């Protein structure tokens, strides 16, 4: 009799459910905003949030890293990590910009060849092509050569930065055509981010690609036994991540109206931190683009809050470091708690 009762219990046990991680992140965001709002009124005598200019600066600033973070999020959900995004931004930015220069600048890189004032599809295609090559290399190394993603993308991080620096021996490239500038003008970066985020939110939620990404991150052996082509899928995941890094680079370059070899430095860590803060588990299998978008806003609020309160830039970096470590610690703690519940 006790056995049967125990068996029945198995169906009712483990009902305990915690809040979705996205909800926790959202509450964190709200609390942060309230804190800065309170500090704003007491220290600066004005509202932090209700300031159109501050909001638009904040959101365009994080949008670029946000685009990168969308790609990184799907890599993390698939059970890997991508450290190369920031450097891919650097390389893509330099090479794309050299094909986006206007003829008004007499020392444009390819002015002798006559490759100036080109229609914007050319720098866009070349930029995405550079990112694609990086993504293919990442994808082959991780999916087929089976290097740990940490190592493969670390290698790409160093290499792509090397390419960015080698391209002009470190000199910045400027004077883009008006057409190219338009990619980064006004709220364009934000619209591009929103489009990318919504698209990948839908893809991860409603398509085969999404289902297999979660399945592989959750239990790679099970995914394989179920007949999922794990290699081909992971290859695709890394290629898409690199393409999104390339897109982020185009937006950043257009917005800055210049390309610099060090563009994107440590952006990959910001992107990972945004994802983890938003509840994407470094163990794979869990998280969403919505969470990452909330993580991105938390980043934006903290830094625009610091500028608002005129906190020194050095402190910003220290806090950023603390946030990254804190987010990973939080994820570890979540995983441990989950393991104990089972």
């Amino acid at each position, binding site marked *: 009799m006790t*056995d*049967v009762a*125990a*068996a*029945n219990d*198995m*169906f009712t*046990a*483990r*009902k305990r*459910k915690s809040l979705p991680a996205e909800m926790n992140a959202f509450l964190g965001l709200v609390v942060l905003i309230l804190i800065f709002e309170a500090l704003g009124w007491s220290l600066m005598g004005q509202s932090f949030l209700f300031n159109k200019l501050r909001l638009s600066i904040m959101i365009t600033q994080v949008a670029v890293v946000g685009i990168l973070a969308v790609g990184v999020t799907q890599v993390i959900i698939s059970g890997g990590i991508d450290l190369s995004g920031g450097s891919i931004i650097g390389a893509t930015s330099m090479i794309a910009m050299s094909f986006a220069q206007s003829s008004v600048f007499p020392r444009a890189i390819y002015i002798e060849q006559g490759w100036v004032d080109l229609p914007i599809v050319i720098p866009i295609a070349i930029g995405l092509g550079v990112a694609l090559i990086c993504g293919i290399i990442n994808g082959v190394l991780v999916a087929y050569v089976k290097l740990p993603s940490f190592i493969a993308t670390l290698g790409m991080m160093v290499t792509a930065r090397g390419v960015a620096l080698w391209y002009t021996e470190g000199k910045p490239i400027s004077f883009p055509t008006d057409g190219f500038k338009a990619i980064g003008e006004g709220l364009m970066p934000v619209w591009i981010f929103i489009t990318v985020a919504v698209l990948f939110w839908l*893809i991860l939620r*409603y*398509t*085969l*690609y999404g*289902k297999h990404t*979660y*399945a592989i*991150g*959750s*239990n790679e*052996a*099970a*995914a*394989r*036994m*179920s*007949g*999922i082509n794990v290699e081909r*899928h992971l290859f*695709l995941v890394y290629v898409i991540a690199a393409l999104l890094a390339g897109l982020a680079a185009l937006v950043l370059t257009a917005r800055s109206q210049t390309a610099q070899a060090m563009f994107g430095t440590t952006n990959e860590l910001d992107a990972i931190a945004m994802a983890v803060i938003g509840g994407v588990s470094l163990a794979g*299998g*869990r998280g969403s683009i919505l969470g990452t978008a909330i993580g991105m806003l938390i980043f934006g609020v903290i830094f625009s809050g610091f500028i608002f309160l005129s906190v020194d830039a050095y402190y910003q970096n220290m806090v950023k470091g603390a946030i990254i470590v804190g987010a990973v610690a939080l994820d570890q703690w979540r995983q441990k708690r*989950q393991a104990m519940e*089972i």
Partner: protein
Amino acid sequence: MSDVILKTEGLTKYYGGLHALDNANFELRSGEHVAIMGDNGAGKSTFVRQITGVEQRTRGKIIFNGQEVHFKGPLEAREAGIETVFQNLALADDLDVPSNLFLGREKIWLNLGPFSILDFKGMKAATEAALKRTAVKIPNLANTIRNMSGGQRQCVAIARTATFASKLIIMDEPTAALGVQETAQVENIIRTLKSNGEPVILISHNMRQVFDLVDRIVVFRRGRIVANLKKSQTTGEEVVAYITGAKTAPEFSDAA
């Protein structure tokens, strides 16, 4: 001979120097339910992994449905009609029940290659039907597997094999982690398969269950088949003697 579903000839698997499976000759006829028994590490799961293409054999022949087969992976085996419940559950913890049932062969609503849109409704309905057929009760299909008991998880894995038409079902210790009630449920599923004439290979350590469910018992010991016994002509003691090595059948005496 035409009604032989599965036949292995000299099937062998070495892991380096370890002879996990050695020269296994095995036969299964259509509609037949055969149990594979043997001590821990006897090579039972290894045998299953070679047949289902999860691993590649060292040597030997596998003839399935009258044709020699070389499955490159579990998907090929499954497409050929072999459904397997693996001992280490092949489930994704972070996915819900329908997603696990249809893992690797999802129903598609709109075909866009890798970005095909999934038919969630269809998969949910088919899942409900499969669970009903197998009398498995799971309160909320949308829960992730992570939040379920061992018994529920096993039921999901077994319901999965019953969801898709198949020519052979292999279950590797399907009731090892289950309570009494859930074990009874699984055994009922196996009886249903028997009455439908679907052949089953059942790996089990449970003597009562084996004598209840199967027609024939094959005993593995140290990577070799040491006995092939009709249920009607043997006893529990005899099977145990073969498992422990106290006894060896004359036709397998070289295996001792």
